[in-house]
C-alpha cells in the first residue's frame, strides 16, 4: 500500500521539525551488563565468546580460523579510504552480554531494556502486524516470540545461538555456504566473533504471509555488533523478514558488521527488508548474499538512512533455471555520511531474470555511491536483467557516484541499464510554492515522490515510519 493513498499530511511533517535522531533513537541506558569483554580482538577474545556460548567444537575451530583470515586480509583498497581508515579495531568491545535471560514475554525483559524497545515501538508493532519478533540488545537476543500456529507448522524462527544449539545439523549444513569466511575481511571478522542474529527455517510449501521481524539495538559506546543470520526457505515456501536497527549517538565510533545468508530452495520466495537507521557514529559494513534455486524468487528491499559509512551490496546468485532476483534500495546520505551501497546479481543458470532499482538522496555534504555488478555466466542463456540507478542531489555540496559493472559472457541475453542524476530544481520548488507549499514542504514532497517506488514495497506501517524518518533527515536542508 502506498503512502500516497493515505495522503501525506505535510503540515504535520513541518511540526516534526525540531525533533531529531537524538530524542527518538539516540538515547542510551546506563551500562548494566552480565559480561562486557574488554576492548580489542585476539584469539583470547574469540575463545571467550565461544566458551560463553558452549558451542560445538567445529564452530570454535571455525571462529579461530576466521580470526586468522581477518588478521591476514588487508582493508579494502576501494571505497572511502578516509572513513575506512578511521576504524580503530582496538577501540571496540567485541562482546557484551546484557543481564537477564532471553525472554518470551516482554515482562520478563529487564526494565531498562524493555523501555528501550517500547520507545522504539517494537512490542506495539508485534501486537499489530508481526508473526514473530526477535530483539537483539548488544550481542545477545533478549526477547523472542513466534506465533503459535507457525511454530506448529514447523516454522523455526529464533536467534542464531539457539539455532546452533537446537538445530545443529541444519546450521552445520548451511553455515558459511553462501558467504564463505574468507569472502572478505568483514565476513571473516563476523565469523570470528558472531553473536545473535536470526535463524529461520520455513518447511516445504509453507507460506508465512505476515512478516517476521528482528530489531538490532546497540546501546554501549564503542560497541561491535556482529549478528549472524541464516534463512532457509524450503521448496515452495515463502517468508518476509524485516530488520530494523538504531543506536545511541556517541562521539566515538561503533562497528556493525553482519553476515546474512539466504537460501531459497526450488520455487521458494524470500523477501528481506532492511530499514537501517544507525546513528552517525556507526560504521556499517555488512555482507548479504542469497542463493536462489530453480524457480525461486529472492528480493532484497534495502533502506539505508543512518550510519557514518555504510558499505553493503546485497547479492543474489541465481543458481537454478528461471530464478528471479531483485534488489530495491534507497540510500539517504546527510552531511558527514557516506552511503556506499549497491547490488550484485550473478546469473549462473539459464533463463534467470533480475532487476536492480537503486535510489539515492545526497543532502548538503552527504555522499552516496552506487556500486553494482551484474554477471551473466557462459552457460546462462536467455537471461534478462534490468538496472536503474537514480540519484537526487540536494544542495551544492552533495555528491553522488555510480560504478556499474556488467560482466556478460554471451550475446543472447537482454541487458538494460539506466542511470540518472538530478537536482531538486528551482522550477520544481517554485511550482509547488506557487500553490501554497513552503520551501521545506515542497522539498519534502519532491523527496517523498522520489522514494515512492521504494516506499510502496514496504508494509504500510514501515512506509509511514520511513516517511517520518525522511522528514527528520530533511530537517534544516539548505537549498
Amino acid at each position, binding site marked *: 500500500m502506498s503512502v500516497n493513498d493515505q495522503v501525506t499530511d505535510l503540515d504535520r511533517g513541518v511540526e516534526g521539525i525540531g525533533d531529531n535522531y537524538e530524542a527518538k533513537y539516540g538515547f542510551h541506558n546506563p551500562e548494566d551488563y552480565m559480561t562486557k569483554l574488554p576492548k580489542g580482538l585476539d584469539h583470547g577474545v574469540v575463545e571467550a565468546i565461544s566458551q560463553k556460548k558452549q558451542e560445538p567444537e567445529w564452530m570454535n575451530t571455525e571462529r579461530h580460523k576466521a580470526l586468522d583470515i581477518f588478521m591476514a586480509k588487508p582493508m579494502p583498497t576501494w571505497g572511502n579510504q578516509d572513513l575506512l581508515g578511521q576504524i580503530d579495531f582496538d577501540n571496540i568491545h567485541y562482546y557484551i552480554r546484557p543481564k537477564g535471560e532471553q525472554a518470551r514475554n516482554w515482562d520478563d525483559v529487564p526494565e531498562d531494556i524493555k523501555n528501550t524497545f517500547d520507545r522504539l515501538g517494537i512490542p506495539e508493532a508485534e501486537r499489530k502486524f508481526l508473526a514473530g519478533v526477535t530483539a537483539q540488545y548488544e550481542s545477545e537476543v533478549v526477547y523472542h516470540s513466534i506465533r503459535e500456529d507457525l511454530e506448529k507448522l514447523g516454522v523455526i524462527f529464533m536467534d542464531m545461538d539457539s539455532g546452533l544449539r537446537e538445530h545443529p545439523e541444519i546450521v552445520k549444513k548451511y553455515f558459511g555456504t553462501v558467504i564463505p569466511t574468507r569472502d572478505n575481511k568483514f565476513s571473516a571478522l563476523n565469523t570470528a566473533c558472531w553473536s545473535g542474529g536470526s535463524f529461520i527455517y520455513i518447511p516445504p510449501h509453507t507460506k508465512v504471509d505476515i512478516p517476521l521481524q528482528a530489531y538490532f539495538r546497540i546501546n554501549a559506546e564503542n560497541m561491535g555488533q556482529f549478528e549472524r543470520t541464516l534463512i532457509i526457505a524450503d521448496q515452495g515456501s515463502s517468508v518476509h523478514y524485516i530488520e530494523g536497527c538504531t543506536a545511541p549517538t556517541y562521539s566515538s565510533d561503533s562497528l556493525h558488521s553482519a553476515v546474512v545468508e539466504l537460501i531459497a530452495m526450488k520455487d521458494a520466495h524470500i523477501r528481506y527488508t532492511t530499514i537501517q537507521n544507525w546513528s552517525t557514529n556507526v560504521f556499517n559494513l555488512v555482507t548479504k548474499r542469497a542463493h536462489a534455486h530453480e524457480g525461486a524468487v529472492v528480493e532484497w528491499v534495502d533502506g539505508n538512512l543512518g550510519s557514518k559509512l555504510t558499505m553493503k551490496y546485497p547479492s543474489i546468485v541465481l543458481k537454478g533455471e528461471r530464478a528471479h532476483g531483485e534488489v530495491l534500495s534507497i540510500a539517504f546520505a546527510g552531511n558527514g555520511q557516506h552511503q556506499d551501497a549497491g547490488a550484485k546479481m550473478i546469473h549462473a543458470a539459464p533463463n534467470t531474470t533480475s532487476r536492480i532499482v537503486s535510489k539515492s538522496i545526497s543532502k548538503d555534504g552527504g555522499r552516496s555511491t552506487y556500486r553494482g555488478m551484474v554477471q551473466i555466466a557462459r552457460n546462462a542463456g536467455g537471461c534478462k536483467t534490468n538496472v536503474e540507478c537514480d540519484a537526487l542531489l540536494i544542495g551544492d555540496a552533495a555528491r553522488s557516484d555510480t560504478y556499474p559493472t556488467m560482466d556478460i559472457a554471451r550475446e543472447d541475453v537482454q541487458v538494460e541499464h539506466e542511470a540518472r542524476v538530478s537536482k531538486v530544481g528551482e522550477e520544481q520548488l*517554485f511550482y*509547488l510554492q*506557487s500553490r501554497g507549499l513552503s520551501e521545506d514542504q515542497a522539498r519534502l514532497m*519532491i523527496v517523498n515522490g522520489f522514494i515512492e517506488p521504494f516506499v510502496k514495497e514496504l508494509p504500510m506501517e514501515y512506509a509511514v515510519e520511513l516517511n517520518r524518518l525522511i522528514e527528520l533527515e530533511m530537517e534544516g536542508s539548505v537549498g
Partner: protein
Amino acid sequence: MNAKTPVFSCRDVHVFIGDKEIVKGVDLDVLPGEKHALMGPNGSGKSTLAAALMGHPSYRVEGRISLRGIRVDALAPHERARLGMFLGFQYPVAVPGVTVASYLRAVLTARRGHDIPVREFRKEMDAAFVELDVKKEFVTRYLNDGFSGGEKKRLEILQMLMLQPDFALLDETDSGLDIDALKVVSEGINKAHREDSGLLMVTHYQRILDYVKPDVVHVFMDGRIVRSGGFELAGELESRGYDWLLPETVTAAEGISS
C-alpha cells in the same frame, strides 16, 4: 473593503534578472469581477512579469504589489498563494512519485490553513475532475509526469477551480491546446472566476479570449504596457499584429530620455 478597491494592483513594478531590466515599470489595477488580458509578442517579458508577480526567486522586483489592499511584494511565493494568488504555468512542472490526489490535498490544505476531511476532499476533487473533463484515473497518476500538454493545462485550471484564488495569473494557458480542450479549459476558467475575484491572462494569441472574454486588454511590449483598451483592442491586434504599436513605444521611450 469597498467594491472599488482593486483585488490586485501593482505600481511601478520593475523586474531584473541580474543587471538586466526585463520589466520597466508596470502599473495595473484589476477590480473585483474583472478579467484582464496581457497581450504581447514573444520575448516582450510578459511571462517574466507573471512569474515575478508570484515571487519567483530568480527575479529581483522593485515596486509595490498588493492583493486586496495587502502588500505582498515582500512575501514568499507560498505566502502569496495562501493569501489567494494563483499562477497557472505555461509549462507545469512534473513531480514524479507524488500522486495528483495527494498533491491536491496538500495544496488545498495549505491554501485553507486547516485539514480537510478525506470524504469532503474526495467530493470536491471529483466535482473538479468532472468540470475539467479529466479522467478519474488521473488521481493516482504522478503529478504532470508524462502528461500531454493539454492534460497539464487541464490540471492547472482544475487546481485554480479547487483553490479558489482571489486573483489568478494565467500564463499562456491556451498554448498546446486543441479546440475541444480549449473550450473545456475556458469553461473552467469562467467557472473559477467570481464576482469578487480578478483574472489576468497572459497570452500571445487572441484565441482563448473568444472563450474567456476580457474586460480590459493591455498590450505589453519591451517591458511596458504600451496601450490598454477594451475587448476590441484584442481584435485589432489579431488583424494588425503588434508592429503598429511599436513607433509609439519608441517615441514614448525617447520622450522619457530626452
